[in-house]
């Protein structure tokens, strides 16, 4: 198996994707990802010179604006219904500046 990713690489990806992995999980994830990436090799083996990519099965999409008329949408209370923490009609998060504190 080719080593596409080192454990350090995987720790970097975990940080970027905001998934906190334990040291053992990093080891297992590194092995899993390397095996999966190995299985993707066929994609690198085609002669694709001059082939346009297809990013979407429905090719000729363009943004369509609806009429500029006011319509109903979620009330604030509904938008907050699923928030794990809320306060005064807002989503509540730990402090992001300086010394924080979980309230």
């Amino acid at each position, binding site marked *: 198996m080719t080593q596409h990713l080192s454990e350090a690489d995987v720790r970097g990806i975990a940080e970027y994707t905001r998934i906190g992995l334990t040291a053992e999980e990093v080891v297992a994830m590194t092995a899993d990802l390397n095996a999966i990436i190995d299985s993707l090799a066929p994609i690198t083996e085609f002669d694709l010179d001059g082939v346009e990519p297809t990013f*979407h*099965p429905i090719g000729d999409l363009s943004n369509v604006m609806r009429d500029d008329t006011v319509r109903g949408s979620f009330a604030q209370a509904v938008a907050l219904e699923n928030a794990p923490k809320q306060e005064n009609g807002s989503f509540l998060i730990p402090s992001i500046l300086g010394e924080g504190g979980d309230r």
Partner: protein
Amino acid sequence: MATPFGSMSVRELQAGLAAKEFSAAEVARGTFERIEAADGVVHSFLETTEKLALDAASRIDGAIAEGRLAEMGPLAGVPVGYKDNLNLTGTHTTCASNMLRDYVSPYTATCVERTLRAGALPIGKLNMDEFAFGGSTETSAFGPTRNPWDTERVPGGSSGGSAAAVAAGLVPVSLGSDTGGSIRQPGSFCGLVGVKPTYGVVSRYGVVAFGSSLDQVGPFARSVEDAALTLNALAGRDELDCTSQPSDVDFTANLAEGVRGMRIGIVPAFLEAAGLAPEVKAKAQEAALALEKMGAELVEVELPHAQAAMSAYYVLGPCEAFSNLARFDSVRYGYCDPGHKDLGSQYEASRARGFGPEARRRIMLGSYLLSAGVYDRYYYPAQQVRTLITRDYAAAYESVDCILTPVAPRTAFKLGEIGDPTEMYLGDMFTISINIAGNGGMSVPVGLGADTGLPVGVQLIAPPFKDANMFRAAAALETVYGPAPVAPDYADGKVGA
């Protein structure tokens, strides 16, 4: 014992309602009693929605009392179950993930709404692989679903709950979603009709996104007609999904036409594929010959780039999933790990504990594949390969009206039998290229495999927006093999072995 309502066809249910043999309220209550009695081991439902169903039933019964049943829609009084990635106001929509364990939908997906407008009785939400990542329903955070044909075996996935509920005769119709085979493969494993329409036939609004350029919702049913009636209700333009397309097709219109004069494509390389079980190959050949005997012309076609579809999919799917699953931030909704003093550690702990192993793998894989330098090696070529695969199909459709292939390389496997993710991915080898190209495809039951005695399906694939072609061929196969039976241990009201 009376036939359970969930074992009836749509026509039988509506005939019984029209003749006042039973009321819609009795259908609803009987369906919940049956689920209570028979779903324990199978574990297809994650939540049942008694109040919503009884409310819908009372509207149907009111209409019947006034002689207006025919006005109530093509699914009037029909119990329908929904994969748990489809939002329905007031129900949990968990995607079988701890991330969404407590999430309650504040809105309803268009596909669900359309079944309700067609008169369906909403019965509940169905188990699945977590976020639809998987082919066995074993990655559900709430425990696996079991195959009613053999409860030691998986129902397939990711829409395994949707398939198992119909195979066990709990409901006649359910909705699933299919990103790489997640309707067709469980359809095959559970011996059902399972339809992945052409991308754009059904609105994706309110469907929790996995691979946005690949996802499509479709029905499971035990007959081609029930699937067609359901797709009639689902199909069409929705201004809330700009990729949805207008539809004026009646998918039931040509079911009785037969296949005389139809050209059915056969892909020799698929039938010689490594890993294809002999019993599955034999069934595909038998079904092709049955179509020929009924007057279809079999035409060999080549799909030279289909072999690259697997790797293209396992590039594109994780990339799109990585992007879509970035929204789970532990702030607006979803699991929030308690006690963190800074937002970063709250994010990391919430996403680590909220997502299961396969979801974490796909998110991290997608992130890697989209990173600078790597993008040019995998993601961009995968989109180029998508062009080649789409061209292959377009070329094939110049000489055929639809294509017949196996669905999955083998019949249902045992729980725990496949642990290696890359081996699990191989189960999608015949279904994935259809999502890549955006075509319609459906699984049609063709009896039991000679070696395992388990259900086998064949896949019919239609050109984009010509889904009616595959329904026509499927209906012809149904005249040979019959509609899908309820799994034997659950037939005639039985509640398992």
